[in-house]
């Protein structure tokens, strides 16, 4: 069925179709619409699931961990300060190998208080062991949420997945959405280490120096396997439903000498900038990074790279730019733009490309050198 909805609604709709057994969530702007909708589905009997309205995000994740540990499909959603409040439990969910799916509506971190789009909230959770994907349309938010359950629950992965969407810019923008009947696309969850009272076992007991690192290596092995699983699940999705995204989405990249790399809605805006630059005779393209964890292998050889970061790691640099610099041979022009919802238009992006200085860092809107 085709309809026109916000991306928040699209996420809620996908969650309803994935039928989690337990959803525990706490509302926060701009994510509220997701959990509000889900609560409505449950109240109307459209989704048979235990909905736990907890008193904090820390508890939301803790409740999901408890439910997931007995082998039940779980979901939660949050944003910004809420995600940060979960931090301890995020490590726990990944370390306990629980395939929890969470939508994070990207929002700036305070102070100063700001409710608008910014990727620093999720990128500051990059070392927790969660898979991270960034989407750019309502349709992609819907499709990716469905795929997230399948990827997280794959026995080669068994790690939680965070689906990230830009606050307001995407979460509150109405776009067309084609819903589908997932059918057998998401099989029933089989958690091999689920708590089973018939076979009592100890979970996460004190683990000494001789063993701890083995569990960490197992997590990394699964992260590496996740690259294959993501591709496999995307192929299956495309075969069934006809839509394909990829680890990166490339726009006019084939013959491009200059690549703009960004995540989320900024990368869609960059497509319009690239059309303009092409008309001026500048052979530019856009590489939209979708999966940030596991970080993909990118082939940027022989191209100039302009990276736009809607985030910052203080004392270091743009998280995406630095990640690209450390995994490829590129010396990107690093643009810090869109922090806390700062308005960035396709004209602005075109000017970043025109005025690029490889190896430099540029803070959009800040006068003088940084």
């Amino acid at each position, binding site marked *: 069925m085709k309809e026109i909805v916000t991306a928040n609604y699209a996420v809620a709709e996908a969650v309803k179709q994935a039928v989690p057994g337990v959803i525990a969530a706490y509302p926060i702007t701009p994510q509220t619409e997701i959990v509000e909708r889900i609560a409505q589905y449950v109240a109307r009997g459209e989704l048979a699931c235990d909905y736990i309205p907890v008193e904090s995000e820390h508890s939301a994740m803790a409740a999901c961990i408890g439910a997931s540990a007995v082998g039940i499909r779980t979901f939660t959603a949050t944003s910004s300060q809420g995600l940060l409040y979960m931090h301890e439990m995020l490590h726990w969910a990944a370390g306990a190998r629980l395939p929890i799916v969470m939508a994070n509506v990207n929002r700036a971190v305070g102070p100063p208080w700001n*409710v608008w789009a910014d990727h620093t909230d999720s990128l500051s959770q990059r070392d927790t062991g969660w898979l991270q994907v960034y989407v750019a349309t309502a349709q992609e938010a819907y499709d990716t949420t469905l795929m997230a359950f399948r990827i997280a629950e794959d026995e080669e992965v068994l790690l939680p997945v965070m689906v990230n969407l830009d606050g307001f*810019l995407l979460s509150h923008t*109405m776009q067309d959405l084609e819903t589908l009947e997932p059918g057998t696309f998401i099989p029933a969850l089989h958690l091999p280490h689920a708590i089973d009272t018939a076979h009592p076992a100890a979970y996460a007991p004190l683990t000494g120096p001789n063993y701890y690192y083995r569990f960490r290596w197992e997590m990394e092995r699964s992260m590496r396997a996740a690259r294959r699983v993501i591709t496999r699940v995307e192929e299956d999705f495309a075969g069934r439903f006809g839509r394909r995204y990829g680890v990166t989405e490339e726009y006019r990249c084939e013959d491009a000498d200059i690549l703009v790399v960004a995540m989320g809605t900024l990368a869609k805006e960059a497509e319009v900038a690239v059309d303009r630059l092409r008309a001026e005779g500048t052979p530019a393209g856009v590489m939209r990074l979708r999966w940030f964890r596991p970080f993909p292998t990118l082939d940027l050889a022989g191209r100039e790279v302009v990276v736009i970061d809607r985030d910052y790691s203080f004392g270091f640099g743009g998280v995406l730019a630095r990640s690209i610099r450390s995994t490829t041979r590129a010396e990107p022009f690093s643009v810090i733009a869109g922090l806390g919802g700062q308005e960035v238009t396709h004209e602005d992006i075109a000017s970043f490309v025109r005025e690029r200085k490889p190896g430099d860092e540029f803070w959009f809107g800040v006068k003088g050198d940084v």
Partner: protein
Amino acid sequence: MYEIRIHSRGGQGGVTAARLIALAAFLDGKHATATPFYGAERRGAPIVAFARIDESPIRTYSQVRSPDLVVVLDRTLVPVIDVLRGLKPGGAVLVNSGHAVALDHMKVHRVDLTGIALDENLVIAGEPVLDTPVLGAIARLGVISLESATKAIAEMFQDPRNVSAAERAYREVLL
């Protein structure tokens, strides 16, 4: 791409109007987006919302800078906000007003949405409903079809007075 900017005060339905326009355009078979600009919105504060309509998928998420159409739901905003800012040459302006509106020598389309809402007893929490009737006036400007406008309204609101108010605005807008 056809771009619309709606000026209103918090509580007047500017954001809902943008959503209704996008839905109507979608029902017309086009691609459309509605993007509210969320600021420190509260009842009475000036707010803006945007709608975009195109034949192909819309990839821009930034605010509308050069609208083809400016809609003003509250005429008291005209002296305090530059509602014409960035208006495309040949662009149109639609103001909710029962009287002629002088706006920088522009030709202003006007319709008394407040009067229509009060007449139809379309009042919520003491405020006349403007977001559904305005769809009728926008349809008359040819941006969306009246059929899709009324269908969009009926899809989002059950009270049939919303549709009849839109139909009245379609007939009564002064072009």
